């Protein structure tokens, strides 16, 4: 990789450094604090009984089943909603900040006036967002393992790695969708809106649609369903789930890059 190509990735990596560190610290802190209360859950029959008395639909919708087990505890408190949503939010934010937002405020023009292709500039920004999501995932995984050891939460490493990988892929899917919208339109409102609608709306669809017999079939349109319907903390993950998120993410990233090279660049 030559200096020019490296800069097209390193520059955007640096430009979101501060927000990326904030996201990383926030997610890692939530994981640590949540795992820290595991000993209270593990030994509290009252807490388990309280959740058992909730309606079955509520328990299912919010992933509260078997909250007294390590897998149930992590699913209900972290990985059924919070961590995937935070990581998806981070990815959407990075994607919007590095593409349509930069274009809208005119900061891309200085870079695009240099001897680089538009596609290379856009692809460099996608790679920068990817790098930060990988870093966040790696640090979250490390904090999860460390916290588990510290607070004696026993769960298989393969289950955790699979779950966090699916969180990362869901985030990348939402980020790639944001990049695609940015590449096609250059409008931050469209890019950010679409990314967040899919991230948040997908969570709602995956959580609530199964509660209705009429809507249950449509839960499968949600990328959250593709990622977590198999309960990766409790069961081995089917390989297709990785591809179901990863392949569209790559396709959306390519679409955004292609589209960005073919349209007008917005002026400040």
């Amino acid at each position, binding site marked *: 990789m030559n*200096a*020019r190509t*490296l*800069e*097209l990735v390193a*520059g955007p990596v*640096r*430009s979101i450094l*501060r927000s990326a560190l904030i996201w990383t610290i926030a997610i890692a802190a939530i994981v640590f604090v949540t795992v820290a209360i595991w000993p209270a859950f593990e030994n509290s029959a009252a807490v388990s009984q309280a959740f058992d008395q909730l309606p079955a639909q509520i328990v299912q919708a919010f992933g509260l089943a078997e909250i007294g087990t390590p897998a149930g505890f992590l699913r209900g408190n972290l990985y059924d909603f919070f961590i995937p949503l935070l990581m998806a939010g981070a990815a959407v934010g990075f994607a919007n900040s590095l593409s349509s937002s930069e274009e809208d*405020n*005119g*900061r891309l*023009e*200085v*870079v*695009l*006036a*240099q*001897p*680089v*292709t*538009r596609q290379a500039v856009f692809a460099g920004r996608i790679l920068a967002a990817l790098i930060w999501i990988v870093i966040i995932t790696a640090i979250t995984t490390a904090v999860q393992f460390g916290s588990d050891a510290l607070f004696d939460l026993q769960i298989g490493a393969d289950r955790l790695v699979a779950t966090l990988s699916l969180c990362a892929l869901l985030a990348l899917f939402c980020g790639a969708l944001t990049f695609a919208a940015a590449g096609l339109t250059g409008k931050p409102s469209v890019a950010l809106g679409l990314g967040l609608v899919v991230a948040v709306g997908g969570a709602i669809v995956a959580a609530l649609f199964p509660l209705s017999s009429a809507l249950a079939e449509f839960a499968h349109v949600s990328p959250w369903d593709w990622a977590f319907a198999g309960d990766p903390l409790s069961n081995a993950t089917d390989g297709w789930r990785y591809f179901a998120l990863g392949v569209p993410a790559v396709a959306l990233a390519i679409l955004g890059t292609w589209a960005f090279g*073919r*349209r*007008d*660049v917005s*002026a*400040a």
Partner: protein
Amino acid sequence: MPEGVQTGGTATATGATAATAVAAPGDSSAEPMMRVRGLVKDYGSTHAVRGIDFDLRRGEILGFLGPNGAGKSTTIRCTLDLLHPTAGTVEVFGLNPRREGVAIRSRLAYVPGELRLPERLTGAQLVASIGRLRGGVEERRRDEIADRLKLDLSRRTRQLSTGNRRKLALLLAFLWPVELLVLDEPTSGLDPLMQHEFVKLLREARDAGATVFLSSHVLSEVQRTADRVVVLRSGRIVAQGTVEEMRSRSRQRIEVWFDGDVPAGVGDVPGLADVAVEDHRFTASLVGPIRPVLSYLAGQPVSGMQLEEPDLEDAFLDLYEEPR
């Protein structure tokens, strides 16, 4: 209209004298650095550029003038492949910006009109970052330009004033020895001292062989630096020619004193308008060649005469206004 000045949306400059005068030393090529033909750019129903033709000749400084919204920045952004023309063609160095944008941009430097820089970087970091995209930075040259522009490169760009951000953009433009400088309102926000330094840098770049495409609202700056000008209004070229030709479009104020009363018939002299007679002198606007006026005055007891230097601004104010 003076000879050589062309007006109209599809006129193409043909001033061979001017082209010869500004050709780069040793360059015999007549190939323009930039060739724009029938350029049209629409934004939906808005017609930003309505079919313009002009050439930027090798080694010249071309002033690109017009009121706000005339289509100057749109035209410039088409040459850089930031915008795709609705119709017409743009060639830079004989290359197509859309297909060969990287090759074009490696040979030019650009200062955008609406200047937005990454806010978290210091000036030095921004220069280094752009330098990595352009194959390196000559630090001695960087420091020399920063010193001349009185620019502190250790400060973050968000801490810089508008003028200092503009200086940073100018530093980035003059840092590399490019063949073409594309400058869109380059001195906007600069104080007069720095505008003067900019003109010096511009002339040095031209002397080193660079061609300059200069969009500006500062007519005095164009008057001092440009070889030719192209004037846009509402997306059309309304005039183009050398600065001298453009300047000669403007009305000159003439004032003549006589030993006695002002002779009769002064109001009938061809080329004089708005004649006002007062005691032993008259004032008028010179709107045509001066020869008939001098012929008239030759036989009169003239004690003094003053002819004001025509100003580019006067010429352009008429061009800038929409016809009623």
